[in-house]
């Protein structure tokens, strides 16, 4: 008889007894194992496919965010059609002021110019936002007290909004129309 390979009858009985007395513990542990396996299975289904591609996040989110609609067309889109105004503007004080800074978001108009007509801004409100004098603004920035300066007349009465300055011949005729 090989004493090392076959367990004695006593050892076998002891193991059986142990299983009988501790069996309930293995059942409890068994519940855990089953729960864990179910968890792994569900996880495989539920975790989004692109998760972890670039980092601990759903990579597809990047594309979703990039696909959101654009509302401001950007000045290059305006200049493509309105090159005359762009030209006037580039020679004056408002050269760096982009079109939509005053005219609002106009991507809809740029996409479909004939059906979407922009509304001309009310200069009385619009210009005052930037040019109303206050101790808070940088001293070098052109600013006036609107009541003193024009006595209530709308700004485009004297200033061309696209080239508002009056010095050294860069002045152009005041723009026609606009809100009164």
């Amino acid at each position: 008889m090989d004493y090392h390979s076959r367990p004695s009858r006593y050892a076998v009985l002891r193991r059986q007894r142990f299983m009988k007395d501790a069996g309930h513990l293995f059942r409890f542990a068994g519940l855990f194992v089953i729960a864990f396996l179910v968890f792994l299975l569900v996880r495989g289904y539920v975790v989004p496919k692109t998760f972890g591609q670039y980092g601990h996040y759903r990579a597809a989110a990047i594309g979703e965010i990039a696909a959101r609609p654009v509302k401001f067309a950007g000045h290059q889109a305006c200049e493509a059609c309105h090159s005359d105004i762009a030209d006037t503007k580039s020679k004056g004080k408002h050269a760096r002021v982009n079109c939509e800074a005053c005219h609002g978001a106009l991507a809809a108009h740029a996409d479909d110019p004939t059906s979407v007509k922009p509304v001309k801004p009310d200069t009385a409100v619009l210009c005052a936002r930037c040019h109303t004098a206050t101790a808070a603004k940088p001293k070098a920035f052109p600013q006036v007290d609107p009541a003193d300066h024009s006595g209530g007349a709308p700004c485009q009465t004297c200033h061309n909004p696209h080239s508002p300055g009056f010095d050294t011949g860069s002045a152009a005729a005041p723009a026609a129309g606009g809100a009164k």
Partner: protein
Amino acid sequence: MNISRRHLLILLPAAAVAWKYVEAGTPEASPNYRMSDHWWGMLIDIPKCIGCGNCVRACQTENDVPDGFFRTWVERYHVDDIDMTNPEVISPDGGKEGFPVAKEDEGKYFFVPKLCNHCVDSPCTQVCPVGATFISPDGVVLVDRKYCLGCAYCVQACPYGCRYLHPEKRVADKCTLCYHRITKGLTTACCEACPTGARQLADLKNPNDPIHEFLRTHSVQILKPQMATGAKVYYNDLDGSVR
């Protein structure tokens, strides 16, 4: 693993469809834009800001920002002569309709536009329990609206107060650096609307971007440098009193 020809015929098209699905979700699928070519930031030139609020309004229009919450806002500082720790700061409705006329001439005034700093070591992405907010490979901190739980831990963790919980969508929200614009070659809505050029989008990975020259020749700061967030919004001439 032995795959029979029949299995392969089924697997290959399925894999192709799956791959298309994966591809479609990434901006790599947008023509000409490669994330690895860019590292986005912004430059804000304080002396140029006039507090007109154009940027706040433009951002709200472009990104459907709910009323009472702000992806960007402007603060007006009034700093007394020697007391730098006690500035008088206002931001009426985030500066959206500009600011009331300042009467006093004592002390100095300036405007500070603020937005998400798109931090490299952002504390907000660190604390998200599920990975709903992250920094993209091109350096923009974004929120995955479909994954966010709305626990607001990131809102608490941001030192700059740039995050909020969207009242209707009930997820975290914040400035996306107009990701949907910059990946198409446009600039952000706030930069587009700024009349004085106080706000400039910057691509730090582009060697021709004017920011590199600017950083070399000007005194530039970031907000709350002691927090070591790796903020990528650079301020020119930021006063020490700015919180």
